[in-house]
């Protein structure tokens, strides 16, 4: 009896929590409305099922609790009922899966005109690279990584010469333009996670991974590492600043290119 009341109370508490919670998704700052929509649909469907099943559970416990002289019904199975439940469940599942897969279709389809930049992770900091005037990122090799060449750029590759290197942990991106983030790690797996952007992806050493998004509002957002990367994992922070296009261009033009860095470091090392 108490357990039936407790279940109803927990259901009511859960509904209240859902309605009153101070902790919910951060305001969206990217095009990934479709992810939020799929999440909302899931929340509604699952919420209704949660309430319905538990109310049925609580009612059954209350209605059929043991009393003197009461005897259970003998009721082995009902093929018709089980079939109906199976079909309706399958329909519900399909209804959840559809928006999820549609959003995923978008997720894997990177717009052709996306601005490409690279986020590079290492224990426990971020750095960034833009392709420069030629629009092509120069080749890299982890064997080239050194204190003088933190990005591991191939010095013989002409495409790399004009690459713009951002060694600070803050990157700027333009508002309203699709960007494709190429992700590379120098040491262990990391994950590029900006909650307001929703999309995230792991950085995996030995390969280049990617995802895309379109920033939809200006502001500065935390980048968190979301894949355990050692004792400093929780300190591996960066920032994405979303600027209006001109401000972004100005910022970008102030960042050094690979040639400039070589020119600076060569006299010093000789």
């Amino acid at each position: 009896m108490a357990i039936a009341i407790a279940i109803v109370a927990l259901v009511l508490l859960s509904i209240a929590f859902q309605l009153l919670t101070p902790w919910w998704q951060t305001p969206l700052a990217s095009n990934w409305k479709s992810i939020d929509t799929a999440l909302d649909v899931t929340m509604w469907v699952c919420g209704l099922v949660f309430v319905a099943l538990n109310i049925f559970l609580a009612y059954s416990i209350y209605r059929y609790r043991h009393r003197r002289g009461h005897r259970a019904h003998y009721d082995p199975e009902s093929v018709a009922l089980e079939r109906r439940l199976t079909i309706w469940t399958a329909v519900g599942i399909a209804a959840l899966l559809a928006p999820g897969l549609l959003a995923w279709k978008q997720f894997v389809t990177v717009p052709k005109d996306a601005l490409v930049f690279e986020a590079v992770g290492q224990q426990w900091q971020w750095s960034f690279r833009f392709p420069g005037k030629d629009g092509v990122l120069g080749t890299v090799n982890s064997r080239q990584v050194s204190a003088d060449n933190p990005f591991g750029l191939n010095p013989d590759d002409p495409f790399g010469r004009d690459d713009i290197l951002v060694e600070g942990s803050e990157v700027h991106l333009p508002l309203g333009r699709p960007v494709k983030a190429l992700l590379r790690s120098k040491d262990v797996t990391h994950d590029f996670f900006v909650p307001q952007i929703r999309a995230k992806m792991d950085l995996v050493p030995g390969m280049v991974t990617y995802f895309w998004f379109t920033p939809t509002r200006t502001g500065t957002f935390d980048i968190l590492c979301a894949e355990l990367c050692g004792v400093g994992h929780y300190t591996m922070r960066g920032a994405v600043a979303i600027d209006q296009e001109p401000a972004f261009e100005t910022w970008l033009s102030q960042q050094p290119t690979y040639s400039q860095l070589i020119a600076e470091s060569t006299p010093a090392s000789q």
Partner: protein
Amino acid sequence: MTSTTIADDTRVLHHPKTWVGKYVWSQDHKVIALQYSVTAVAIGLVALVLSDLMRLQLGFPGALKFITPSAYLQFVTMHGMIMVIYLLTALLLGGFGNYLIPLMIGARDMVFPFVNMLSYWVYLLAVLVLVASFFAPGGPTGAGWTLYPPQSILEGTPGRHWGIILMLASLAIFVVAFTMGGLNYVTTVLQARTRGMTLMRMPCSVWGIFVAAILGLLAFPALFVAAVMMMLDHVVGTSFFMPSLVSMGQQTKFNGGSPLLFQHLFWFFGHPEVYIVALPAFGIVSDLISTHARKNIFGYRMMVWAIVVIGVLSLFVWAHHMYVSGMNPYFGFFFASSTLVIAVPTAIKVYNWLLTLWRGDIHLRAPMLFAIGFIFTFIHGGLTGLFLGNVSVDVPLSDTFFVVGHFHMVMGVSPILVIFGAIYHWYPKITGRMWHAGLAHIHFWITFLGVYAIYLPMHYLGFLGVPRRYYALGQTAFIPHSAQVANEFITVAALIVGAAQLVFFYNMIWSYFKGPKADSNPWGATTLEWQTPQTPPAHGNWGPKLPVVYRWAYDYSVPGAPQDFIPQNVPPDGVARHHAT
């Protein structure tokens, strides 16, 4: 001249003559079950303490000076690994599997009693190697229970010298132990059922354990090879999982390996592992609900097929743990679909548990309370799984506290509630004594309400985007101060739930010595283990003659029958009934 059939010949059992033979090097499945259970619970207590230490750091950052970032990650790792492998897997299969299979199918023992004994001792060795890592230089590994390379064997991760080696060795040893046990469980179910015990008359408990054991035999080898390969990478310098990389500014000699290969191997084991834990719990809870609601399990055939289908499908969903791992994103379409398909047979199981209660005669004793608690937590954990399985919804939630909340509800709390229910249910049979009902109720209420207080808020922190495996949140613009309040609240709840388990242990130990003598069948259950000639069952289980089975395991409240249950070994009585088996 009288003759004895082979099945009834008890001379082959080699009755032990010494105390050591009876309780230490025992080949009796019941003793081995208790050895497994006590060891699993003991190491599980370590993991429980570790979880409370973690919570203390999250709730009250920096209050305990010895919880450094390294120690925190070590607690996270050891807590997860111990709970999943050394507690849940060992207790549900090595403990309950061992105890219940022979008794429920009417066998005298496992078919390979010596291998069964070896299985336990090898498991104990795995536990000892694991415990040794706490005392190794540098402490246990802090790589997270997923042990993802490259970080698990590189500078910057705690326990990267000895801790990880001992962890991998312990896992490999565990797989050996599991294989010996698993082969035994599967073979025993297939070969040693007593006359009349057809597969479709087996109790759901046996079905769940049986399919879980098969799954384990298919899945654990993936963990075994992953452990061996990582060991080679670490000790010999091979590059199975290690690409060319720079560690702490130093070039390494690794070249050409794939970190994703490890993740695939790990989750090819890791996802079936969820069901290796869940299926025995599904089976056992079905029997608890049926017995204490005095009603047959609703839709037995569907329940059995659902277990089988879930078992098969669970081998095809592993990469839903890897949607944002950097694998080819097109895999997401397949794995999201296969994952959500599993929800259908799982939902059927939930419906049938509810429909078993419907029109039942529900006795709200401790085992039933825990079973009902399980239904509630499993509905919650199952539904949040639909968020994470549905590829694009997973993207913002992966690696946040939502994931922590989800998997603790679905594969931590839910199976553990079933385990508690099962212990209360079978305790009178195992010990011959009855536990204290009042203490059992106190234990239930604190545990059940407490776990919801712990895990419900975690989901919302996850929606907000609070990442998991963080030693401290630090200054993060999007995380309001109230999130810290939530963490404090969760920690207090976790400490209370942790302490409440003392009530359980006190009850179990006190009742073992001082509890009132229990009847041989106190719940009026139909299954064979309650029909043994002695309580607790003697070596050989059945006395001179094996029981013969005449009916399914769920003849409760049969119309016209004098009692509200008919044991499986009672011959047909002419009462007209209509059921499937």
